[in-house]
């Protein structure tokens, strides 16, 4: 049992470009809510002790204070609005479909019960042609280059979850949902399904393999050759 598991700070395992931005926003919210948490709980405890019933004690006849109401309403409002505006910038950067990097490498991902089918274009760079090939439950991507995954689902809703990349996006039947990210490190990472999708939901895991650009090209060439052989 590792003590890191009790951490409230995001695990130190980010491997995407915007992952750190998200973790920083998390940290800001953690500080704000953490301060409010300790302040309110401590005040609550102090009041409980200080104003406990004792012989001969009488409560003060106070109905409230408009000034206090105004102060805590406006402070709360300002804090949450600042968080909302801060969130907006990051959200647009990640999710605005017009801001998906134009040079992103495109992969189609068809989720089915209970598999992830990553579809790559062949040498022609076009989908739905004879040289397309599928990688089952293993997503191969290059490092240092944006990737856009076009999510689709064949049967029910699944959710494409890459914890280390801080990526999660539902794959909905009848829809194509793009999600983009850029890996910062090579290696093997987790692919998980985060939306209850039936009996085998808990087994619907996979792997993301991040290659160097050269390795990735080699892998593509190998797969294309294999696909053409079929």
């Amino acid at each position, binding site marked *: *049992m590792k003590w890191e*598991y*009790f951490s*409230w700070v*995001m695990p130190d395992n980010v491997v995407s470009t915007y992952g750190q*931005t*998200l973790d920083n926003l998390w940290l800001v*919210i*953690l500080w704000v*809510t953490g301060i409010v*948490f300790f302040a*309110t*709980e401590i005040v*609550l405890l102090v*009041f*409980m002790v200080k*104003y*406990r*019933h004792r012989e001969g*004690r*009488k*409560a*003060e*006849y*106070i*109905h*409230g204070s408009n000034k*206090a*109401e105004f102060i805590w*309403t406006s402070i*709360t409002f300002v804090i*949450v609005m600042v*968080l*909302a505006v801060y*969130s*907006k910038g990051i*959200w*647009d950067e*990640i*999710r*605005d479909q017009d801001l998906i990097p134009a040079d992103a490498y495109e992969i189609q991902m068809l989720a089915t019960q209970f598999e992830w089918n990553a579809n790559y274009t062949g040498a022609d760079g076009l989908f739905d042609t004879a040289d397309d090939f599928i990688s089952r439950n293993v997503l191969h991507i290059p490092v240092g280059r944006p990737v856009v995954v076009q999510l689709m689902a064949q*049967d*029910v809703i699944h*959710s494409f979850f890459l*914890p280390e990349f801080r990526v*999660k*996006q*539902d794959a*909905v039947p*009848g*829809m194509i949902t793009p999600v983009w990210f850029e890996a910062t490190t090579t290696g093997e990472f*987790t692919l*998980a399904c*985060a*939306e*209850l999708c*039936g*009996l085998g*939901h808990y087994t619907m*895991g996979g792997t993301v393999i991040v290659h160097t650009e050269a390795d990735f090209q080699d892998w593509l060439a190998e797969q294309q050759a294999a696909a053409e052989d079929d």
Partner: protein
Amino acid sequence: MSTATATETHAEHAEHHELSFIRKYIFSTDHKMIAKQFLFAGLMFLLLGGLLAVTIRWQLGFPGRPLPAFIQWIFPDTMAPGGIILPEFYNSLVTMHATFMVFFALMPLMAGVFGNLLIPLQIGAEDMAFPRINMVSFWIMPVAGVIMLASFFVEGGAAGAGWTSYAPLSADGQYTGVYMGQILWLISLIVLGFSSILGALNYVSTVINMRAPGMTWFRIPLATWSLFITAWLLLLAIPILTGGLILLLADQTIGTAFFRPEGSGEPLLWQHIFWFFGHPEVYILILPAMGFVSEVIANRSRKPIFGYHSMVIALVSIAFLSWVVWGHHMFQSGMNPLLGMTFVVTTVVIAVPSAIKVFNWMGTLWRGNIHFDAPLLHAVAFVSLFIIGGLSGIFMAAAPVDIYIHDTYFIVAHLHYVLVGGSLFGIFAGIIYWYPKMFGRMMHEGLGKVHFFLSFLFYNMAFFPMHNLGVQGMMRRIYDPNQYEFLQGLQPLNTWISISIFLFASTQAIFAFNFLWSLRKGKVAGNNPWKSNTLLWTTPSPPPHGNFPEMPIVYRGPYEYSHPDREQDYWPQDEPPASSEAGGQVAPAPTPEPVPGD
């Protein structure tokens, strides 16, 4: 004096209308009896929902290990052969745990019990506006409950698509292997909806039309205010759910395609309908508890509630805002990302009225004279746990942060802080506080405290670390987290949580014992054991049919505690002002009774 005549009138009254056993205890139209029926039914379903939770936690704490022999026999081979929970049964467990807790335990225990008990008594009415509709409202619930229970025993088992029933998983049996179970789930909730609608209709009509003379809107106690607002939410939200359920039932049974893409249906439409109902529903499950807590904290601090008007305004604002925040459940659903920001703003704004309520409760305790008995302990626990549940909500409201924690245990922790730490502790506060009015006796204070401290401890031991599971990325609703390498290290934490849940669940036996024991052996309560101001406490405990011997007249607000000009630290709403000028001695003062916990 009037008290004596009142007793005589009541005695005659009772003789004239001696009701048969069936009319009195089963098909009763008396709002207090209906409240008790909802109480017993709701507690039974709470027990059932709890047992399902314990079973879920067995699988997560000890994955793949057979259930202990003494519970194994409950489950047939289709659910847990040899005591080992099957994955399909696990999906049914999480679905049915939430369904029973939300629709059959929390809703009846809040709106059903306290809407019925408190509204007429706190506003000075003799009963509900429509007593027969009220009776029907109760009896629909066990019917729906039987249908829901039956779904466990049909072929394919109970519904397993989650309580949110996302289509197309829920729209076609081929995806789950559950056909009849899902259909029964839909039918049961469609039927149950009528119970809520009829109940809410009554609450709204009663509060608007049947207030005693002098009971102006801003003299209504906050418990009734919160139940009134909740009733509006029920009245407006439940038909939306029912409409969605009927469409889903059509997809399931007669081959329509409202939510199935094969027929150009739209899976996200279900989510929009469900959460358009679902977010007001969240407040249906918490607003009444806020009302109970306001009542208890003011009374047990012997102090006027801080900011009565802003408390009411906050309730109304939460109710309005609850209609425009549903999209925060759908940030990762594939909904247009530009819409996402709209919902971020509305969602963070709803934090404002919630914060106002918390600060006002703290303001009420400030310079009070706090009596530490079981209702107050539960009410303050509500405040402290609601703070945690509210603050963790801010993480999810920030859409970019929600990307990572969506559908993880962070959400599970958050919602259980609101619905167990909030609603359930609020219900406990309410039951203990109003028990004497319902049954004429007090619950045992010592047992109440033991139950409280153990519950509070085990509750936090169980649910607080769930946040940490979420931070590590553990997804919800997975049968065996160990399938994923990155979650394997979390097994000891999962086992810890499961053991804490078992302890928390076992602790509830103390409450059950106290509840049943006190029915016969509890200390006799008298009319007003908490020295409260509301009209409810001017009636005998339990109140007779018709509640008030004569029409009460209301002279002041409900929270006139510790008024400097008065010797007593309370001032009942119906005490004529003249008596205070005469030094508070002339009026038929209620016989002073010892306050429990003193």
